[in-house]
């Protein structure tokens, strides 16, 4: 029996959707963390922050009006979500490098662009930015690995790095000036 064109249309539409390029399917800066439940048990220190827009708004309502907290409030205004996972271990090799590979694979797709990568010994930190449709900042991701530490950060929204820098030295956020960097020894 010859299938009619009308019967074929839904099947063709589904096939077209499935065949769409991954970038077109995943037009979001939201990263999906791999299963990290087991890591928290191995870690000596674990941080799990998951804040959606509603919780960010709620948090903003509980921030004060002094200079420091007003700066945080201003930063939160344009954010959609914050997801942070951070683990510290007593010894090296307690987390699976495949976890990092899984996150890096997601950062290789869509509108993610690697801004900076810095490697120092066994420590590696990469910063990625998501460009929205207008080319503006739409998100930030940080992947930082050390033998005994793992940090994954995914912030969605218009993040203002200049405002973020203003927070240095306030609210317990460390301030590191370029002059704090180790200087080369004189010859």
């Amino acid at each position, binding site marked *: 029996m010859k299938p009619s064109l009308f019967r074929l249309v839904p099947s063709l539409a589904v096939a077209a959707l499935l065949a769409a390029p991954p970038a077109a399917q995943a037009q979001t800066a939201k990263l999906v963390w791999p299963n990290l439940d087991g890591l928290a048990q191995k870690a000596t220190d674990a*941080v799990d*922050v998951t*804040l959606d827009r509603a*919780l*960010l708004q*709620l*948090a903003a*309502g*509980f*921030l004060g009006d002094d200079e420091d907290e007003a700066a*945080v409030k201003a*930063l*939160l205004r344009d954010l959609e979500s*914050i997801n*942070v996972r*951070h683990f510290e271990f007593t010894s090296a090799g307690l987390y699976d490098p495949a976890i990092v590979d899984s996150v890096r694979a997601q950062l290789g797709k869509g509108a993610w662009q690697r801004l*900076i990568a*810095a490697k*120092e010994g066994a420590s590696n*930190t990469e*910063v990625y930015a998501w460009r929205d449709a207008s080319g503006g900042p739409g998100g*930030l991701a*940080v992947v*930082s690995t050390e033998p005994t530490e793992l*940090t994954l*950060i995914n*912030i969605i929204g218009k993040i203002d*790095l200049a405002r*973020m*820098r203003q*927070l*240095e030295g306030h*609210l*317990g*956020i*460390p*301030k*590191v000036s*370029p002059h*704090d*960097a*180790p*200087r*080369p*020894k004189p*010859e």
Partner: protein
Amino acid sequence: MRFEDQLRDALRPLDPGPRFAERVLARLEPTAKPDTAEPSALAVPVLARPRGMSRLVALGLAASMTLATSAGLVFLETQRRAEGERARQQVITALRLTSGELNEIGRRLTAAAARVETVPGDPGRLEERVP
């Protein structure tokens, strides 16, 4: 009989008989006395004190209900405050970690830049200084 005759016969006026109006009024009478009827359950006001309950008991019940409602509202507000405070702490933790990572990468880049110096006598040439 012709159809016209049948129709005329069917529609001809009938005499209702004597005391027709009285009989009609007599039938209407039972529903015409709403005041004497027992009030239905739906007609009882919601806040009316049930029969047999003393005024003191009614006041006690009302006070308990007000107290329970207030306690519920206070609980919800406390919960909302706790959630807000937790969210605030989480925001600060997340920003502290993010800022820390950005600072760390800045420190590494600065350190890397400091290790690279121009070669004396050849400003265009860079060389890495080993600390």
